């Protein structure tokens, strides 16, 4: 009887474990209040889409650098940011290396929304892990903390990252 109960619980446990594993891969995200960003008010819908599109950009970045596939950037990056990341992908491909970025935590703060609504700037204190591989062989891993500054601009369907630059945690533009 006990064995039958245990057997019936196995599929449920597997689903739970899979969900847990999926959840573990998702970064934890903290978002600062956008109520007094200025000069333009950040509408609720914009707040949601800006965070969603920025976090998706990290996934695109991760995919592009892990697979050395610059086209993976197109969905989330544009302009200078896209060009620079594509350069890194090209460098990596030339060297025969891949890097796996796994963002673990984001602490987001929107700091500027331009008066005409054409650019929004955010700071992200992010923690991530990097794996370096050469021809598939793991060469090293590292845990990093940095402060990313991103400027996003609206496109037809979503916000895309136009400027993407990490700053040292101890240096700020204040």
């Amino acid at each position, binding site marked *: 009887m006990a064995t039958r109960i245990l057997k019936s619980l196995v599929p449920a446990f597997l689903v739970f474990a899979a969900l847990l594993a999926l959840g573990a891969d998702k970064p934890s995200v903290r978002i600062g209040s956008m109520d007094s960003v200025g000069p333009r008010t950040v509408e609720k819908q914009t707040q949601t889409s800006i965070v969603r599109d920025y976090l998706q950009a990290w996934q695109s970045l991760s995919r592009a650098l892990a697979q050395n596939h610059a086209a993976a950037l197109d969905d989330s990056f544009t302009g200078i940011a896209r060009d620079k990341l594509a350069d890194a992908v090209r460098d990596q491909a030339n060297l025969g290396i891949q890097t796996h970025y796994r963002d673990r935590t984001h602490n987001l703060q929107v700091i500027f929304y331009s008066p005409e609504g054409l650019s929004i700037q955010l700071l992200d204190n992010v923690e991530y892990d990097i794996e370096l591989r050469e021809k598939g062989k793991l060469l090293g891993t590292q845990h990093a903390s940095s402060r990313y*500054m991103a400027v996003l601009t609206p496109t037809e369907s979503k916000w895309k990252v136009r400027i993407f630059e990490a700053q040292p945690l101890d240096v700020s533009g204040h």
Partner: protein
Amino acid sequence: MRGLRTLLLVVLSASSLSVAQSSSLRIPAHVEAGTPFEIQTQGSGAAVLYIIGPSDALRRNVQLGESVAFGSDDLHNAGHYSAFIVGGSISDSAQFDVLPSHQPATLSFLAKPSRLPVDLSGGISGVVYIFDVFKNLIIQPQEVSFRLSVSDAAPQSRTVTSHEGVAWLKMNSASRAGVANFQATAGNVEERRIIQQVAGNPCRLRMNARESGDRVALETDPVRDCSGNAVPDGTIVTFTETYAGNQSTVDVPLKRGVAKTELPAHKGALISVATGVVLGNEIRLSGGQ
């Protein structure tokens, strides 16, 4: 003895601030984009040094115990970098940051709108992102001067300090219509945008009537805004004639600053003129049919 200890502590803390190090690598904690720097390796034997960041990737064969020199062409892009050193028995890593240069080289200047009425408070916005020669956003505060000038009028100038790479402001449009130069300057870099300032809404509207047989010819005075600028041709002026409980209306676009039309001249008819939210004078016809 106490002084020596304090000095030692100061030296130790200063070195830990300025150098990112692991057991095998000593790297300056901060490197300016496009400047040469060195990474000192420890140990012995051959190894490979990898420098990776989201914008650059480098690989160098190194001899442990020697320093590895990087030239001004090697790392241009500001960001957080990881250095991995991998040798026969060694695998180590460190991190460092590449900072933008402090010298502005390009400005991304967004001026909006490209066309607006005169005398509009806060009607013009200017946003400037400041980049160095490698297109890194310069996050250190920079003075940005904005200047809005129209011919035959005193320019408006303001200086704004950038914050996290961006400087912005709002300005009033000038009282004189015409082409305005909107200029942003940071360091030796200047960007210019053109803004067309057009006359505002008509301020005052007056028509004259000249009866001729069974028709009355109507013509406005030149239509101007409250600053004396001619309202653009094409602006619609509406003439309305009310007679015996009936109303007839004619919409006429301004041509060379005035609107002209003809209406039937009914004796006792009341003719009024309007454009936008401005009502002009009324004329009651004394002659006509």
